[in-house]
């Protein structure tokens, strides 16, 4: 039996992850709320600097409650008078909305790496009165701004691409949560206030393979259909739903993405979407995907590759997921 599921080695993370892990041990996990997710998809990205909760120059209060009586920068924690969270990432990394909302402002006229007082950004207004700001983005002409004023966006939806515009010493996302106080937008600290789905925050769409009803080669008689299911654990920050648009989580064909399948059965949603998630699956739950495999082609041994897709929002990270395919053997008659 061939190994159909290949788990990749976890990429090394910055020491910040260790610090956040320590914070988790000290404070305990927050209940999943599905409210806010991390504003990117890359699981290798980690916080480098958080919000300074003390406005005095030379006094820094980080998200763990530690005070630093200096103006030095402290990797993994904070630097003086910082109003957001810095996530280093390569130029043109996708940046995602942290929560459902409406685009309140955009700026894309500065160069992708144009250093200066002002840079490119997207700001989203949310139903809870908060705003989220995504700063230092690439220029609009360079694909840095993916939304327009007044657009409705979903949590996890791409709003732009990272850059290094404005006051920026190297490519990173400056993510900021603002509270509307009488018309003024005031900085808050999402880590201290635990706005994240969990503690620490999760990226929006991630999955881990759990199992299948038949983990070996699926044998199907030519012209017949066998039913198959596969389960994935929702390790992202967004609830998987079968009946929303956009954002419905489905199992689609992969490699190449969205190709017409030779094995599409009558229950498939179309020739490249095998099925949607069977039931609503919140973070930490396991979602099942049930679908038919029809022995349409001639006898032989095949494979079909799949990936999870939050439709209209994004495909899941197939490399992070480890890849999923079904070995299929089509026979003329039952053996």
């Amino acid at each position: 039996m061939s190994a159909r599921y290949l788990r990749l080695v976890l990429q090394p993370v910055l020491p910040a992850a260790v610090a956040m892990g320590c914070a988790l041990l000290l404070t305990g996990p927050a209940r999943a709320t599905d409210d806010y997710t991390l504003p990117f998809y890359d699981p290798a990205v980690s916080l480098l600097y958080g919000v300074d909760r003390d406005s005095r120059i030379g006094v820094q209060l980080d998200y763990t409650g530690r005070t630093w009586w200096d103006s030095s920068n402290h990797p993994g924690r904070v630097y003086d008078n910082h109003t957001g969270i810095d996530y280093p990432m390569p130029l043109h990394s996708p940046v995602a909305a942290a929560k459902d909302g409406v685009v309140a402002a955009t700026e894309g006229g500065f160069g992708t790496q144009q250093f200066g007082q002002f840079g490119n950004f997207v700001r989203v207004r949310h139903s809870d009165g908060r705003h989220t700001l995504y700063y230092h983005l690439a220029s609009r002409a360079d694909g840095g701004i993916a939304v327009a004023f007044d657009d409705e966006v979903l949590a996890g939806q791409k709003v732009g691409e990272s850059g290094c515009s404005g006051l920026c010493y190297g490519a990173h996302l400056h993510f900021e949560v603002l509270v509307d106080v009488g018309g003024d937008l005031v900085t808050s600290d999402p880590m201290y206030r635990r706005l994240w789905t969990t503690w620490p925050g999760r990226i929006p769409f991630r999955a881990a393979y759990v199992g299948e009803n038949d983990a070996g080669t699926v044998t199907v008689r030519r012209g017949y259909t066998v039913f198959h299911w596969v389960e994935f654990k929702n390790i992202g920050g967004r609830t998987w739903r079968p009946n929303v648009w956009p954002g419905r989580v489905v199992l689609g064909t992969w490699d190449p993405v969205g190709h017409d399948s030779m094995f599409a059965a009558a229950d498939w949603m179309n020739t490249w979407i095998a099925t949607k998630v069977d039931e609503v699956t919140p973070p930490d739950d396991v979602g099942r995907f049930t679908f038919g495999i029809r022995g349409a082609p001639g006898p032989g041994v095949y494979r079909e590759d799949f990936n999870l897709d939050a439709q209209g929002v994004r495909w899941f990270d197939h490399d992070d997921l480890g890849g999923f395919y079904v070995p299929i053997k089509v026979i003329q008659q039952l053996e």
Partner: protein
Amino acid sequence: MRAQPIDGRERNARSWVLAEIGCVALALAACLGPIGTPTNTVGDATTAVPSPTAGPTTAPPGPGLPAGFPLMPGMRADEPLPEDEGLIGRWTTPANGAEVFDFLKTALPRAGYRIDLLGPGDTVAVIRFTPPGGQRLQIDLGQAGSGAGASTFMELRLPRD
């Protein structure tokens, strides 16, 4: 430990000698064509001419300074150093922080150092690196001043949390 200040006459003499070596090196480089990145052998960074396209200079030897530590052209050594245990050297440049960060990202590996952490922020950055056979060191970048007169400072130090 700190970098030792260099006497003015010694600095001038060294500059002339090293400038001549630099000219010879540049002439050789011009003859040989663009093979790799030209590395000036000018030992005194305070006399280097700022140029965004010039290759790195090398910091003069000093206590705690790793051999071959690259300096961006135009970097000026700040002396005397402020009282700060663990501070090895401090320099200032009119170049912006993004330019300095990009320079170091390339120049440190070329100098044979292993980069352990690249941490860019808004007006700060930290780079942790390890010279061959040496102990891990940290570079802090930050903004000095504001507006048109703003400059970027670079501190080389022992790592801190």
